[in-house]
Structures are given as C-alpha cells and as structure tokens.
C-alpha cells in the first residue's frame, strides 16, 4: 500500500448495510469499507468482492478479535486487500499475515505512523523456515486465501 489516503473512497459499516445490493458495480461506488474490530460481523453477508479494500481498525493490540475477523473475511471468499489500522505490535505481524491481512497501518503517538506490508513480515527472525513450514499454519493460510 503506497497511499494512505483512502478517506474519500470509504464507506462505513452502517452505509454498507444500506447499500443497494442490486445495483450494478459502478465507478463511483465506494471501494473501501472501514470496520471497527469490535463491530458486529453482519457486514460479511454483503458482496465483499466489490470492495478494493477492507480496513479493520484496532484500538487495542491486546484485543485479538481482528485476527478472527480477518480469517472470517477470507473464509467468505474475499480476495481484495485487507488492512489493519491502529494499535498493533510488530510482534503481531506474522500472525496478521497468516490471518489474511496484507498490510498494517501503524498509528504511533509520535509522527512515526507508517504502513507495513505484511508480505514479508515475520515477527520471528528467520521464521520463513519454521512457521511457514509448520504444516498446520501453512494450511491456515491455504484455506484463507
């Protein structure tokens, strides 16, 4: 993700619910759905693949719901970009990746906010060899993407 500025193109969960599902995809339609990590998961019932990106906002790295939400979104067959925004720890990047996230937007108190691509995000040094090889975890990925 090169560009953080997806604000103009976003839709909130309540608007998503009201969206006319029958209307054909059009250019003006919002492409980014923003969902709080503690919101209900009814949004999963919508036509997720119309969306370019789903953004899950986390206010507390210790509230692990965003991992399950990511998994559920991927299990629903969503193939677009999946982003987590807010309070997550670098130590969680590997798990985020395995739960189907593509990138994380880290908002520090300082002006240190940054986007982290999770493509090669391994919280464990050299873990590409181990967690990725752990057949169980591999399958988790296989199923989710």
């Amino acid at each position, binding site marked *: 993700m090169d560009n953080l500025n997806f604000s103009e193109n976003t839709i909130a969960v309540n608007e998503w619910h009201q969206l006319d599902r029958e209307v054909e995809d059009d250019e003006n339609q919002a492409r980014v759905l923003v969902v709080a990590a503690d919101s209900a998961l009814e949004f999963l019932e919508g036509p997720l693949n119309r969306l370019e990106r789903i953004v899950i906002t986390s206010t507390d*790295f210790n509230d692990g719901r965003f991992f*399950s939400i990511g998994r559920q979104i991927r299990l629903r067959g969503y193939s677009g970009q999946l982003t987590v925004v807010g309070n997550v*720890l670098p130590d*969680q990047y590997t798990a985020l990746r395995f739960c189907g996230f593509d990138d994380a937007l880290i908002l520090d108190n300082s002006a240190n906010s940054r986007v982290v691509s999770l493509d090669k995000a391994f919280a464990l*040094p050299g873990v590409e060899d181990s967690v990725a090889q*752990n057949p169980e975890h591999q*399958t*988790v990925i296989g199923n989710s993407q």
Partner: protein
Amino acid sequence: MYNYSINDQQLVDQRVFQFRDQTRRFLSGELSDEQFRPLRLMNGLYIQRHAPMLRVAIPYGELSSRQLRGLASIAETYDRGFGHFTTRQNIQFNWLQLEQVPDILEELASVQMHAIQTSGSCIRNITCDHLAGIDATEVEDPRPWCELVRQWATMHPEFQYLPRKFKIAFTGSSTDRAATMAHDIGLKLIKNSAGEIGFEVHVGGGLGRTPIVASKIKAFLPKSDLLAYLEAILRVYNLNGRRDNKYKARIKILVKAIGLDPFRGQVELVFQNLDSKTLLNQSTDISTVKSRFRSVFPFPVNLGSDKLSADEQKTYSRWLKKNTMGTKFNNYKSVYISLKNPDRAPGDLTAGEMRFIAQLADKYSGSLIRTTHTQNLLLPLVHESDLVQLWQALNEANLSIANIGTVQDVICCPGLDFCSLANTRSIPIAQEIQNRFGDTDELHALGDIQVKISGCMNACGHHHIGHIGILGVDKRGEEWFQITLGGRADQSLKIGERLGPAVDRNSIVSAVESIIRHYLHNRLDEGEDFLTTLDRIGIDAFKEVVYG
C-alpha cells in the same frame, strides 16, 4: 514419548531468539510495561511477590529423564535449587532474574522443552490423564491427540490474544483423572454404537470465581474433525467473549450468557464453513504425530528376590497398596512418587531429587516420568520384580511416603508465600493437616479423602472440587478460611457446598480434623468413603461439628 521433528525444534529455538529480543526491547525501554506484559505472559513469565516466576510447559505431563535433568540444572543454576509442580502438570520456578530468562529458555529448548503459552490469554498447556496409554480400560491413548492439539495451538496466529486464558484437557478413560469437566474444553475419547472412536466434547467448565461444570456440546465428534471443531469453538469465543471485565471473560461465562444451544449453533455455523478434512488430513497428520512417539519398554533389571525385614515388609506393603497401580501390561505397575511429605511444600522437588528420580527412571521405567494433576510424579511402567529395589531406593531418599489419594495428598496452590494474588498462605495449612494425620495406621484407615486448598478465589488449588475444599479469604487484613464439602474432580465432577461462615487461622486445621473424625465415627464400615457418608448423613451433621 513424543520426539521433536526438525520443525518443532526450529520453532522453539526461534521463539527463544524472539523472546531474547523482546526482553532486550523491554529492558531498553522500547517496549512499555503494558506492551511487554502479554508478550512475557505468553512465554510463561509472571511478576510475583519476590521475583519473576517462570512456568515451564510439560505437555500432557510427560517427561524424559533427560528433561528432568534439564529442569534440575535450571533449578540449581538460576533458582534456589527447587521447582514446584502444578495442578496443570507444569513446573514453576519462583526465584528468577528477568535478564536470565532468555538463557533459561535456551536451556529448555536444548531438551525439547519451552514455556510457550503457559500463561497469558491464549491456549495453555494441554493436559491429560496421567495413566494415558497404560490404563487397561482406556478406549484409546489420548497422547497423540494431545500432541496434535499442542502443535495446532502453539503460536496459532488467530488465538494468541483471546479474551482470557483457555485450557484444554483430554482423557481416553471413563475414569476421569484429568478433571476434564473443569476445563474450557474437555475432550473424552469414546466409542459410539457403531464401534467408531471419536470425541465427546465438553465446553465451558472452569473453577475460579465462578465454578461451572462443563456442558456437553457434541456427543460424538469424528476424530478427523477435531482441529476444525476446536477452531470453530475458539473463533466463536474470540469474537464474542467479554473483554470489558476479566472476571467475566472466560468461555464458561459466554456459554452461560447466550445458552448452550445457541452457542452450539454458532459453533456449528463456523464449523460448517471450514473445510475440516483439508485442515486435518492434508496438514498435520495424526499418523505422523504417532510415528514420532517412541518409548523404550523397560525390561526387568532385577530378576532375583529381595528380602525385607518384617517391619520393612509392612511399610512396603502399604506403599505397594497406595502408591502403585496395575497397568494394561502384565507384570508391570505404575509407581507414584508422592510429593506430599509434610516437610515439603506440596508439589515441590529439589534439584538433587530431580536427578535422583531421573536416574531411577533410567533404570526402571524406560527413562520416562509423568507429572499428575494432583502434583505428584509417576514412573509409568515398572516391572514387578523391580518394585522392592525401587522402593528401597525411594525410601532411602525419603521419597517413599505411601499417601497417594489420602488426606495427606493435599492439592495446594503456592499461596501468599509466592503468589501476588493470594489472600492467605496455603502451604502451612496443608502441612499442618498432613501432620495432624501423621499416624500411618490412622491415615490408611481413613481411606481416600481429597483435600484441596486455594489461597484466593482464583482457585488454583481447585478447592471447589475437593472432597474437603479450603478457600483463603482476607477479612480486615486477617487470614480466614471458607470450607466446602462434597466437591469431586472425577467423571462425576461436582462443585462442593459451602459449609458455613469462614473460620479463622487458629481454627481451620482443627475444623478439618473434626470433619474427618466425624466421618470416621459415622461411616458404616471401612468401605464407605467420605463422599458416600456425606451424602448419607448430610452436610448439616458436619456443620454442627464445626460450628456446634
């Protein structure tokens, strides 16, 4: 026992590397207390009263002699020369330095051990019947399934930050020795009417502030669906468990709040959307796990007969009766080593004793040792012709006390001596009760009575499910104790009933003694156990004795 694959070893080694870096970041201020807390907890590291405490996982309670020596070395090098075995079959070291923990984890990794997920809001050590694989009545050995779940749960990407801790226990026997019904998930291997083996799944059990017996969520789960079904339960819990109040965050509260049937419905919905067969058959394969279980069957060392004096014979016979059990293998017995001698804190073992027991395991039990949920050790298989020699060796080391299952075999939390959550001390109460019944003839005449002591309502000493339960409470800065009667930890798991108001520190041990003596006077015969007498004469009779 299970031997690590290259991947298992690599994962544990890398986890050490990672924790070393996390510790460095914390000590240098890069990580705040709040950020470091879940990371250290996930590696078994608590901040206790005196020093950091490290809880080391003993997956399903199985240890090799090499591992026990590894633990001895840690106790000696980094701690004060002893370790403490817990009710979840783990071991704790109480006097460590934070800076040394990465080195300790490295030593553990060198003997295929770790402290991963022994604490924190994640899936904890998988526990199991300590007679798994040797009990003649067992449907199937649950240990490979425990190992499969251990591998699945270890650093599971989705379930590291759950609302609260999550405990899973297995049994393959109809006699439940692992208190499975007091776990978040209890799994029992059963045979259905078609003769197929699968799991009976129980969910939402637990002790703590709100003791609840687990409910049956699935009467028969095919073995191949195990991981998928666990994943479904965990996901429903992760998404819906309360996070606003840690005392209401366990799955037992969620199941009660939404009701068992709706909860089951949600789990089934998630479960149906998972390709369960793919998940199990194409990835972690139970047959691969099974193939990594290797044990040396112990051959008899001593084929001659041993002469015992008349006195020795009496003591030996008692030990044989109380501390050994038949197994499914002809001529082989399981031997308990009781860690409930009144001169030690229940569950404690010194480094020297660990090495000594490792040596005995090498000689007599195929180098294997098990830990039990009752905080004792077990040599799983010993040939009958070696029992006298083994007893003599244990006797010389003061490890032959014959009190398994008796009132001296107290389960007890570390209490205020170590724990920063405790209201009261528990170890001295345990020791005083043990001493009250120090007369061996009387102790054995009493039969089996389970006394369980917790120093606070978090219930680490399982007081709710003791035949006699003792809970330490704080009243205006003084230690008081609540008594419950009639709890049980087996397949008929039951929460004990409160006897009455708490009693003070000076009265608690006498109160327990009165309860036991009242049972002794009222039982119909030696064959009527404590719970049966209690059922027959009722709790009020015991109230009079204590509060009379």
